[in-house]
């Protein structure tokens, strides 16, 4: 085929036309992907907007000072009080109990799986552990109420039927798989050369795990703890079932109390008139919860950035 044959020209323009088609389809795909990404971003923005705007109405009726300092939470009574600290105390105490269980246990399991267990044990144990994370929290809630509370009452006879202690302990067990699994991933990502360096200095496995592997994986461990905290703060069903739902300003885990989340469940189930002050408390409580988890997420990001190891 000769180069200056005019019949070659349509071939060239064909190729151009195909390119144009390709550009259109590329644009189309890009647009679809953007839409998919936008859905999640817009949903988040929408949630924040609803929370903030409803809370704004709420704070027109209740001063922020009262909201933060009042020691009673009785939004549905005639003599209404709106002290969020009552609910925050329940959330803090139950989360504290849960983390006191989950952080040590999760870390120890992660150290065992990553540094001590042989590959056969790990292959069996890790999926089972992760299965524990798939149990619906309502099941954990009834487990706390019907098994753990009676067991605890044997040791602590004065423990009431509903308590933050029992709900918190079970919540801790629920969080263990998350912390253990993420921490184990972080520790396994520590390069073997670092471990070999430690062993070559004459360290034992335990010394290597504690003094070299854990510090090297610290950013990942911190991230897993923060995730655990977020799970504990946001957990609802276990607390609604096993911790009782009466608002109670207390720092004693042996008492029943409502948390922010269990209060929202309780009130959202009732038939509150739309736009009433009781209705708006849901959003004010929700906004408080959002702010608490936001603080922990930011803390988590900061820890990750500060302690990131580059190999």
């Amino acid at each position, binding site marked *: 085929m000769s180069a200056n044959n005019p019949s070659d020209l349509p071939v060239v323009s064909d190729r151009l036309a195909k390119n144009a088609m390709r550009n259109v389809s590329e644009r189309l795909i890009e647009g679809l992907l953007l839409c998919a990404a936008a859905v999640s971003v817009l949903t988040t923005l929408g949630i924040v907007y609803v929370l903030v705007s409803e809370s704004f109405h709420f704070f027109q009726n209740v001063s922020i000072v009262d909201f933060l300092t009042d020691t009673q939470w009785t939004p549905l009574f005639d003599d209404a009080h709106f002290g969020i600290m009552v609910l925050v105390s329940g959330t803090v105490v139950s989360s504290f109990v849960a983390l006191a269980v989950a952080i040590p246990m999760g870390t120890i399991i992660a150290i065992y799986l990553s540094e001590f267990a*042989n590959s056969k044990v790990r292959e069996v144990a890790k999926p089972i552990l992760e299965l524990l994370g798939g149990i619906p929290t309502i099941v954990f809630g009834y487990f706390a109420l019907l098994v753990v509370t009676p067991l605890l009452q044997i040791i602590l006879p004065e423990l009431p039927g509903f308590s933050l202690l029992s709900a918190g302990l079970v919540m801790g067990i629920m969080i263990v798989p998350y912390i253990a699994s993420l921490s184990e991933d972080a520790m396994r990502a520590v390069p073997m050369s670092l471990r070999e360096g430690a*062993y070559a*200095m*004459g360290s*034992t496995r335990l010394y290597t795990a504690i003094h070299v592997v854990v510090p090297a994986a610290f950013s990942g461990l911190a991230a897993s703890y923060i995730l655990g905290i977020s799970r504990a703060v946001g957990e609802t069903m276990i607390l609604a079932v096993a911790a009782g739902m009466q608002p109670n300003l207390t720092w004693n885990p042996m008492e029943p109390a409502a948390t922010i989340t269990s209060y929202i469940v309780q009130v959202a189930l009732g038939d509150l008139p739309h736009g009433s002050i009781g209705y708006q408390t849901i959003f004010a409580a929700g906004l408080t919860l959002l702010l608490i988890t936001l603080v922990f997420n930011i803390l988590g990001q900061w820890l990750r950035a500060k302690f990131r*190891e580059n190999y």
Partner: protein
Amino acid sequence: MQIHDNPALKAEARNLNFFYGEAKALKNINMPIYDKKVTALIGPSGCGKSTYLRSFNRMHDLYPGNRYEGEIRFFPDNTNLLSSEVDPIEVRMRVGMVFQKPNPFPKSIYENVAYGLRVRGENNKRVLDDKVEHALKGAAIWDEAKDRLSELASNLSGGQQQRLCIARALATDPELLLFDEPTSALDPIATAAIEELVHELKKRVTILIVTHNMQQAARVSDYTAYMYLGEMIEFGKTDEIFIKPKDKRTEDYITGRMG
């Protein structure tokens, strides 16, 4: 080889075989390591020189399925390092190691050097200070590090990190120091510094060094062993190996016709 010409023995491999599972990686190695000398192990990739080196501090024990046969005798006490009755941790207390890629721990410069001492239960601040300074001076990094001892070791440059790793190994006064291609990740200037250091260190400690770089072997070592496919082909004084190799295969390798 006339033994009486040679200095005292520090270690000796006797009929050493090593297996990665079924695969035989070292074949009947017999070789002396002389006290306070530098012995270089050379040979093409996969010839078993690193495998051999890592037998001296029982690094292979860390992974399942590895098996030693034969002995590595360690002097003056004539211990068999490979004996199943000898605790690998005891072996590693006496034999230090510097790796191919600098691997400082995620700790301060000071704590990196103090690591081995702390493992051995030393927690007296004054003793630690003293030994850390001594080790950093021994590894020729004291001047660069003395004002930043509490900084993270990862802030150092690659060459500095490698000298820190040497200081870390020196701090516990090992009898034998293993170097596994210590300069392969470093630039020429950092490499020259490490080579100079190796030369200096042999006054204090016996050194066994694996290197890919034949000029390096020629520059730093007193003795050289050429390995090929898991076998020890030739061992002798470095000058003799490089000037008048006895084995054809050694000659091919050092003249660049192979490898």
